[in-house]
């Protein structure tokens, strides 16, 4: 009888010890992860264009965290969708064309001699990228503009153009070398030309 009691006692003590250790570990090594919304928000392009149907990227991040589809952000495009899929551990899906299509990066330019200084674009710009005061011509700060398009519509004289960002020697990127060999699953396309030389 006493041996049974002893066994129970030993087990109980062991359980207690491990419980304390585990509890301590849980407190001590707690991972202070970013809340998921912050992590999602960090992946979104922050163009703040609202094409996803939300008034900005953060609300959409909250939406995704609440279970919304991840393919509603055209400025981010497939890259962002892939990153989101990886973060959330779901399958990647193509961009929902209902919200727009992927486009080259653009930046707003105000034709300054036509600007009437109505300040409407300033009010529309989500990142305060437009400089100017009432009745003065306005200018876009190129480095701040996210290319969200929101300032184009309100302009009463249509003097805002969205122009693609020009490639200069400063932002030029090396092209990807041609892929010559490929792995099994995808390589049945006749992608090979014999080298003519």
């Amino acid at each position, binding site marked *: 009888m006493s041996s049974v009691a002893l066994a129970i006692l030993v087990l109980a003590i062991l359980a207690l010890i491990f419980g304390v250790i585990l509890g301590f570990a849980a407190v001590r090594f707690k991972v202070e992860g970013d809340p998921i919304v912050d992590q999602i*928000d*960090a992946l*979104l*392009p*922050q*163009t*703040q264009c609202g094409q996803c149907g939300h008034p*900005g*990227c*953060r609300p959409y991040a909250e939406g995704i965290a609440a279970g919304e589809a991840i393919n509603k952000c055209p400025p981010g495009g497939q890259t962002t969708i892939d990153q989101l899929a990886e973060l959330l551990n779901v399958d990647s899906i193509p961009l929902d064309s209902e919200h727009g299509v992927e486009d080259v990066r653009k930046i707003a330019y105000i034709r300054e001699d*036509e600007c*009437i200084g*109505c300040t409407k674009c300033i009010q529309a710009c*989500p*990142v*305060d*990228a437009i*400089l100017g005061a009432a*009745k*003065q*011509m306005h*200018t876009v*700060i190129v*480095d*701040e503009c*996210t290319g969200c398009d929101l300032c184009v519509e309100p302009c*009463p*004289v*249509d*003097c805002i153009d969205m122009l693609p960002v020009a*490639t*200069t*020697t*400063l*932002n*030029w*990127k*090396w*092209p*990807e*070398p*041609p*892929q*010559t*060999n490929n792995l099994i699953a995808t390589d049945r396309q006749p992608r090979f030309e014999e*080298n003519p*030389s």
Partner: protein
Amino acid sequence: MKVFSFHGGIHPPENKKQSTRASVRTMPIPKSLVIPTQQHLGLAADPVVSVGDKVLKGQIIAEPVGRISASLHAPTSGTVTAIEAQPVPHASGLTAECIVIESDGLDQWIEHQAIDYKGIERSALVNQIRQMGIAGMGGAGFPTDVKLNLGSDHIVTTLIINAAECEPYITADDMLMREHASEILEGIKIIQHLLEPTHTLIGIEDNKPNAIRALNEALAETDIDVDLVVVPTKYPSGGERQLIQLLTGVEVPSGKIPADIGIVVQNVGTAQALHRAINHGEPLIQRIVTVTGEAVEHPGNFWTLIGTPFSELLSAADLKPGAMHRLVMGGPMMGVAAETDSIPVIKTTNCLIAATDSEMPEAPAAQPCIRCGMCEQACPAQLLPQQLYWFAKGKEFEKAKNHNLFDCIECGACAYVCPSSIPLVQFYRFTKSEIRAEELEQRKADHARERFEARQARLEREAIEKAERRKARAAEAAKAQAERKKQSSSETAQDDTAALKTAAAVARTKLKKAEIALKNAQDKGLDGVETLQATVDKLKQAATEAEQALQNSSTTEAVQSTPTKSEPKEAKPDLKALKQQVSIMRTKLKKAEAAEEKDESEIEALKSRLEEASKAHTDADNALIELAQSAGIDLKQLRIDVAMAKVAITKIERAISKSDDETEQEALKTDLESAKSHFAQLESQLKPYE
């Protein structure tokens, strides 16, 4: 002197003999010179000449912007004929801003003189070097003044003069050493004076016996504390980090610069240019360029003015017609292939290789990597090129970065040895630029988020403030109401006037809105125009009535409280409205023109309306100008001044956002303050007339 060694390296055929047979020739002055404003990392120089200006040889034509930037000088005397985008020596083959100078053939120097560098302040000397536009002539063209003006936190123990010139074909430094060894030593003295290193080493490969002899002779003649270290020939011993390892046995920690471990490396060409600049007052406007390759008849080295087009150099070396298949600026291992020969020589152009097809055949199609490890044996940075290649190919950028991709010096040794002819270096460059772009994008996104959030917070704050103000006003109004009850009836009348005013304004706005809607409807030919028309009519009537009422009451009151309005104030709303009208009209016209289904007459009508509106606007504007003139102010000039002031503010702001140097930012900020106050002053002057 002990020579260490570095991992890997290769021994490509040297091909240096061809261009060292003859001594250095001097290129004739070309008809026109093209000087790119950006010749290195950092910011492009800012042109200080304009089209049509006459310049003298050595005259400064562009000034540095920011810390990492070098000034540019006219290589010969002549006229600035253009400042425009032209092809530049860059791997992208793109164009960039260049200053084009038509030479007058006189080659007339601007006044210049030597400086006694020992007798002036360090900062003055550094500034002089900056003014002279001295930049690294071996590699990336890093401005020399930055390298020589290290903060007090960097103590330089070792100065290394890079004379290795390890790339095949290139012999520019070799020839410079053979012919101007003593000038190089004089330049080294200047660097020593600035940096005060404990010892100075010249690293040179053992395949340049003539240069070694020349240097030794010059060393014997001057009193200078320099060790000449001969290193075995192995590519890339001239790489900055590799040379440091060869000569000192230490490695520059990843992500650091040599100065962090007390070492500064300068190229021999730079040393010579420094000597010319300080001891003769000649800015950096020429350099030695090797022109070689099987497609030229007489390979050799040339003293060439910066800005000379490649075509001139090639014809000076007698290009065989039709033989050139590839034109490489720089060496065969790291050089950049040019698409056209109209590209100019810049400060870093050390070599031009006009290669025939058989000399540099097109690379065979890449075969799969067989993991032979030859690339790993050759890599001087001790990376795992085959691993990096897999990551680059699979676009696993994160992993590539973790495998120290950014320690790759793009020397090309791996691609040189790869039996599968994989363009490894291009893979790395591609991956690097993708990663850099991604990081930039991320920074931008973060920045945008911050700004968005700041704006959001501001809007919220403003909304709260507004609400509070409204509350306060309401409370005040209530108080006033209560008070007013006790007041005399004359004030009630005033109150009425106010109410009438609002009513009239509201009626007017409504009318305007309705009119716009009507116009839209008419423009678009929509249904329901009639009802709209009726509404507008009704509203018009209401507005007139309201106006009438207001008129009546205000005339009765006029005696009591009509302020004598000054003329400009009256003109003000008119002018603004007119201007807007003109713009809106113009837009409409454009839209109408764009939408082709509109018939001619309508466009005509719009046009005439636009004309009328613009005329009204101009008239009003002229009236204003006259008015201002009577007050002794040139309104046009004033306006231009205001605009200029504003642009100045923007420019400074941009400069602030770009610069990352604290002190510079501070200085810019004070500039900004003064610009702002100037702007405010101008604006207040302009105010009454707008």
